């Protein structure tokens, strides 16, 4: 009986949390479609004009283009930089390896506000702060380690025998890479790619600190408009939020084809048996 109550309490909590979340998200959705909404359960009249308003007034076509360009560049560069390092870290043993792993772990652990301020200072000093290139470089700081840590277990699953066999048959290093490693790590590259994509699009702090007028991503532009609440009609800000939400949701649907939800957070290892 007590077990039942306990189970019921858990479901009630989950239900409460999900209802809360749905309320929050659908409030934005409904508000973006409202002509006027003032203290009634639903708006009295609906309209889609706020989307057109937001699109032209917030220059969203350009912002969206910049966002997609930045996100794709970060994905490609993070994978190129992370792939070889992940291979070595999965295959070789050397002194200082735990230290190296800790170093790669720090940008993921330390909150971005803490290292973002000195990073932004440094970037403005070298005149790359505020540019699209600067935003890409800043976002790569946590994303290169993320790529390394996602790819490592995929390399660990590939049997060494395959590489040895290929080498024995006369394949050189490039051929081993091209014919053995690359095809077998495609699932890992996809997983890492979509997770980096989702993370970059929704990453706020670093982009906020280093972006300038022409290099804002969607989420940073959204922040400025929420912050300046009252300057623009709230419905238009919500319309922008809905466009941001749609972008993230589409990427998330894509991501969930490759990864399980528990893989989207830090993983703690199992206790020793």
């Amino acid at each position, binding site marked *: 009986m007590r077990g039942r109550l306990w*189970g019921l309490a858990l479901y009630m909590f*989950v239900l409460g949390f999900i209802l809360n*979340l749905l*309320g*929050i998200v659908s*409030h*934005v959705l409904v508000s973006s479609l409202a002509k006027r909404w*003032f203290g009634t359960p639903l708006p009295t009249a609906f309209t889609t004009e706020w989307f057109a308003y937001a699109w032209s007034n917030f220059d969203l076509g350009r912002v969206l283009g910049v966002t997609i360009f930045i996100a794709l560049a970060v994905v490609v560069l993070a994978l190129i*930089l*992370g792939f*070889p390092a992940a291979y*070595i870290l999965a295959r*070789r*043993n050397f002194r200082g*390896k*735990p230290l190296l792993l*800790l170093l790669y*772990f720090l*940008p993921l652990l*330390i*909150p971005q*506000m*803490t*290292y973002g*301020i*000195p990073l932004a*200072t*440094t*970037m403005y000093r070298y005149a790359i702060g505020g540019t699209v290139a600067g935003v890409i470089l*800043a976002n*790569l*700081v946590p994303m290169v380690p*993320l790529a*390394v*840590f*996602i790819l*490592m*277990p*995929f390399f660990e699953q590939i049997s060494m025998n395959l590489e040895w066999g290929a080498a024995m048959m006369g394949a050189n290093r490039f051929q081993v890479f091209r014919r053995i490693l690359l095809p077998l790590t495609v699932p890992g590259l996809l997983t890492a790619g979509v*997770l980096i994509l989702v993370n970059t699009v*929704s990453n*706020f*702090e670093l982009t906020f600190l280093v972006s300038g007028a022409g290099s804002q991503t969607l*989420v940073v532009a959204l922040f400025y408009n*929420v912050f300046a609440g009252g300057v623009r009609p709230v419905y238009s800000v*919500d319309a922008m*939020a809905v466009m941001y*939400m749609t972008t993230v949701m589409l990427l*998330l649907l894509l991501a*969930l084809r490759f990864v399980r939800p*528990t893989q*989207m*957070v*830090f*993983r*703690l*290892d*199992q*206790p020793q*048996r």
Partner: protein
Amino acid sequence: MRRARVGERSELDAMAMVCVLPSLLYVLVMFVYPFLYGIYMSLRPAKLLGFSLANYIVFFTDEWQYRTVWITFGIAVPNTIVVVSFALLLAYGMRRGIWLERTITTILVLPISLGVILLAEGILGFYGARGWFHQILLGLGVLKEPLVLTHNYIGVMLSLFMQQFPFCFLMLLGYVSGIDPSIENSARTLGAGPWTVFYKVMLPLMAPGIAIAFALVFVMSFGVFPSAILLGQPAGATRTIAIAAYQQAFEFYDMSYASAIAVVMGLFQLAGLLVIILLRRRMVMAATMGVGKR
């Protein structure tokens, strides 16, 4: 992970170096160097020549500045306790899997992916004076007059909870469901009740995971920035240390002082991270992937 022992032949040949070097250089140039440069800057106040601790002294003697530390603790500590407790209870209850689990975990990923800004905009509307939350509670007669839930401390706590609870829960779920069920079964066979199983058997096994969850959630909450601005009173009750650092850097353009505040913030977070580093033997240094919850 097997560690190379001293004297064992290192497997770091030229090829391996070439592979690791690009990413290592990147982390050194873009992460370590700015960090060190920030510390250096913080010791070179703009108005003085040479090295000085003036920035730190100013920070800790100016009440407007040093009280941000207490404000941040006042947000981070309660938030961490609430988030970890709820996440632990739920993860423990779901350790053997429950009905609709995949759906529930998928929905819980949403707030993580949507990000703080969107949640903030939604919370402003939903919990605002004319939002659905008040309409329902006032309509049902639960409340006599609307509560003030946004643009104050409560708003920040709401948004932090929505953001960090799913994160902490999924992390702990992966950990708890990895504990060998036969341990619990043995305890039950030997006559232990549910409470004894939880307190005497499972809690010690989960302790390292809980400690790490505590540390991670604390460190994340200590850096709270956008939700403290959008949902709090950034000039008053929720002026956190991150806001203080940001203002110095981008409103007063005093990079030296801003760096000093960032260093202070980093030191408090480092204290939280030490827990993780001390426990790192128990932790795979992997951000994702692996066995986890199936």
